[in-house]
């Protein structure tokens, strides 16, 4: 098995798990799913610089060099993903506190605790 196959199928498996979790109805699995999706995307960006072996990570005048730009991109993406995950965790907790339910719709399925006018739409 080539390295490319392993990485590609790994990204695929993690993405699938992430999407499955995002489609769940509770906020905590959704947050986990988004983190997983974020990991998959980060590795995907990294892989778009192609997979290299025995290459220097940054530009030098001699020798083989791996593409440094995806590494820079992925760092930025990781930082942003970290910040947004932190925010969404806090938001989910706050929403749980406000609505007495950790369902993403703000109420337990079948119980309409929200304002009727918005549920009707």
């Amino acid at each position: 098995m080539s390295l490319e196959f392993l990485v590609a199928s790994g990204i695929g498996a993690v993405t699938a798990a992430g999407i499955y979790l995002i489609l769940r109805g509770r906020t905590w699995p959704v947050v986990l799913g988004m983190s997983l999706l974020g990991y998959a995307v980060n590795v995907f960006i990294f892989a778009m610089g192609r997979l290299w072996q025995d290459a220097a990570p940054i530009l030098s005048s001699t020798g083989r060099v791996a593409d440094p730009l995806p590494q820079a991109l992925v760092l930025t993406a990781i930082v942003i993903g970290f910040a947004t995950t932190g925010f969404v965790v806090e938001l989910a907790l706050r929403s749980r506190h406000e609505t007495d339910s950790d369902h993403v719709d703000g109420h337990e399925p079948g119980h309409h605790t929200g304002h009727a006018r918005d549920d009707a739409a």
Partner: protein
Amino acid sequence: MSELLSLFFETHLPVLPVLLPMFTAVALLLMGDEGGEANHGGRLLQRRRLLSFSSVVLGAVLAWRLMSEAALGSLNVYPLGGWPAPFGIVLVVDRLSAMMLALTWTIAVPVLWYAAGGWDTRGRHFHTMFHFLLMGLSGAFVTGDLFNLFVFFEVLLIASYVLLVHGQGQERFKAGVHYVVLNLVASALFLVGLAVIYGVAGTLNMADLALRVGRLGPEQAALFKAGAMVLLVVFGLKAAIVPLYLWLPNTYAAASAPVAAMFAIMTKVGVYSIIRVHAVILGDGAGHAALAAQAWLLPVALLTIALGVLGALAAHSLARLVAYLTVASVGTVLTGVGLYTPAALSAALYYMMHSTLVAAALFLLVELVATQRGESGDRLQPAAPVAQPILLGMMTLLGAASVAGLPPLPGFLGKLMILESSALTPAHAWVWSVVLVTSVMTMMGLARAGSILFWNVLPAAPTGKHSIRAGSSLRLIRATLGLLGLSLLLAVAASPLKRYTDAAALQLTDRAAYAQAVLGPVGGAAADTTRPYRGGEGEVILPAPKGKP
């Protein structure tokens, strides 16, 4: 000294609309914000408002200055950190960018003034987040690099997450969770699209991409198109086009009035990005990948108008009605973009200015009406009359007539321009019928809402004097009137503005001049060192003469 200062100003002008709100936001953070009514009228609050407001006014001046410079046709290129174009990140202010900047900052002034009428005390750090939002918006409009566009998207999104739940309450958190999750998934997709494009083209600089996409072979072009279509989904979610618009009515109706008004420009960020990627980079002359979205954009845009207007007809609250009209207006703008001619694009840009201003004004107006009606709020059912029926009624009539497209209001001019520009294209029958029929339906929906709000009133005296007073505050009404007045100015100044948008649309088709300005005369040769990956052996051929391994 003053010469030095003006030189500094001239050199760094493109980056100032990004830096100014950033520093203002940081200063506001340092000043602290305890929030709540307790410090209402306090000295700290007054200082915060003063700083915030003067910064927005200064930003508007800067944006208008940039627009007046761009009107002369120059491309203002600002390499961040002095790194030359394909390697470093550049900011590029062309006519389109400058117009979007001016629009953003022009809306920000009355909206912030409105917010300072009380909303900024119903939670913490409203002003800070408002300025971070402006920073993200300005950055997204001036950047010349797709990854940088992603970063500024995130800046404006994070600010918008916080602003959306400003004022708190169950409804806002409910809408907030949906909005945040949707946008985070969209951000992940954005990165996937960017990574695919980078993997194929070896660059994310917009000017460089526009050059390289034409040289791609058919197989690579297919992959590039796939990446670009992923980006279309992401931008489509922001712009709220069919079938990705379902989040918008709930979110905008749940947001506080000034936030919803500011969000009116956020759908336009999506439209702007679609123009940049699909109408410019993948426009004519993009080789095998040219016009990737053409088969999709126009039908989707027309469907968006139709469903948006149907939603407006079915809406049972005024805020939702305006939110659905925002969806419809995005569809109208994208119709112009989807026709893929400079004339149609120009018409779309004019209509975009109008629809943003009117949507912002209507969102503010919704709250004025809702507070004056007391208990019933903005629900479309017979209720107590508003305290100022003539004033609010006339304002609603004005906004509604402009949205529906009655002459001589700017909405009419914008729609007319779009119809006119579609006359010679094969899709003109579709465009004409959808735009005209939906205009009539919009008018019906707004007439229904207006008659319920202002005529079909119950005789009962309004209760709750406090809320009535809040809804007729002079400042709030003036701010709303200011926005409406600005939208009227679009009709008064239609001729110079149309000339400007014509030139902007033409400028977007001139790929050579854009590449020349951004990449410099050596652009082609220098760009070859940021290579697309070639072959599987993992070799990079460096341009250095002795650097061969």
